């Protein structure tokens, strides 16, 4: 079945989890880093996205810790989440390559694009 493009916050959350399990605040700071500060996720947006991604079996809870008396839950990509992120990365890469070619740019000329 053909899948639609991921929205940017969703893409960034999956990207943040691609390197390993992270807790909510870790995902928020990582997303800010990945997007060079352009996207700043709020807790409401993050947990609504996690709720949806968990429901779609793209993300799952990994483990829980108690830190300073408070629950900290870690999330990780599921295999389906990894495949979905890889497919989206490939799609974006192909689009970027076509855009660069049509602009007559050398590979790597725009922000490190291949």
């Amino acid at each position, binding site marked *: 079945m053909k899948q639609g493009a991921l929205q940017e916050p969703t893409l960034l959350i999956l990207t943040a989890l691609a390197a390993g399990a992270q*807790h*909510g*605040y870790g995902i*928020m700071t990582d997303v800010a880093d990945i997007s060079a500060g352009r996207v700043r996720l*709020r*807790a*409401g*947006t*993050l*947990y*609504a996205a996690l*709720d*949806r991604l968990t*429901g779609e079996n793209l993300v799952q809870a990994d483990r829980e810790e108690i*830190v*300073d*008396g*408070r*629950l*900290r*839950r870690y999330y990780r990509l599921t295999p389906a989440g990894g495949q979905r992120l890889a497919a989206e990365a490939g799609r974006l890469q192909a689009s970027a390559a076509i855009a660069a070619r049509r602009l007559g740019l050398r590979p790597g000329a725009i922000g490190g694009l291949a």
Partner: protein
Amino acid sequence: MNGGEGLTDGGESLERSYGRLLRWYPAGHRARHADEMLGVLMAGAGPGQRRPGLADSASLIGGAARIRIRAATTGSAGLWRDALARAGIVLPLAWVLLALTLVVPGIAPTVSLSPSMLVMYGQEYLPPLVVLVTVLAGWRRVALAAIAATVVLDTGNLGLRFLPAFQPWDAAYLAVLGITALALVAAPGRARALLRWKHYLLAVAAAVAAGVAEHRLQLLLTSPQYSPRHPGPAGWPPAELAGLGIVAAITVILLVRSAASRRLLIVVAVPLYFYVAVIVTPVYRLPSPLIYLPLAALAAAAVLLAVRRARTDRRRPAAGGSA
């Protein structure tokens, strides 16, 4: 990161405020994630912050709304189908009972049961009775044909010829027939398995009570003593008012207490809207857009349902339909 290291007064106040915002979330989500989310929110708070920022508050309320909408619309297709199936029997049953209250002595205010009046009522209410009987009997195709025939035969009343004269009563009738047809198409044969005698009893009690209330209100609203500025229950026999109140309270409590019946309430909202409009129209005239908009919404829902069903059927070509 502010963490949870020994909260100051300001920190406690901020945490309480975040806690209040988290009450927007469904109970199940709150039970699983509230502590975790509080940790994230407090970790992201600025030094000395005492109140949630506007962006955080909007994000939490928006997130809660998205989660509630998703919970109501996904994974619950079966509940919606069941609600539609129930509405497919409850609505024509209620319609026929409302019609009966018109000819029961002592309920309807102006009825004289002359042969010509009975013929007139028969012409108006026999078709829905045929629809109800065929639906209850499970004769799906006959019921659909009866609905189609009713709409065609009643074209004049239903406004295609006399569009300016289109009234809430016609709209309610059209909505009842439309939802019954949708139920026959989308959830064939389910309602009789879902409905128990107590459901029929409740539907009968609610419909008769609505009929009694309708006639009494029509009488009160159109009496010379009535003033829209003082719409009190004056002139309403206390015993009747108490009885109707009890039936209404039981109906509302039973309808809102389960997810399936709440959906039934949403499915019957359009005809219910027009029915209320019928009652208040003698005094509060309904602007025409308010007649057409809910019908347009119902038609849009029917189209979406048809498209969804067609797509489902395309993905499962081997699945057969039921007659």
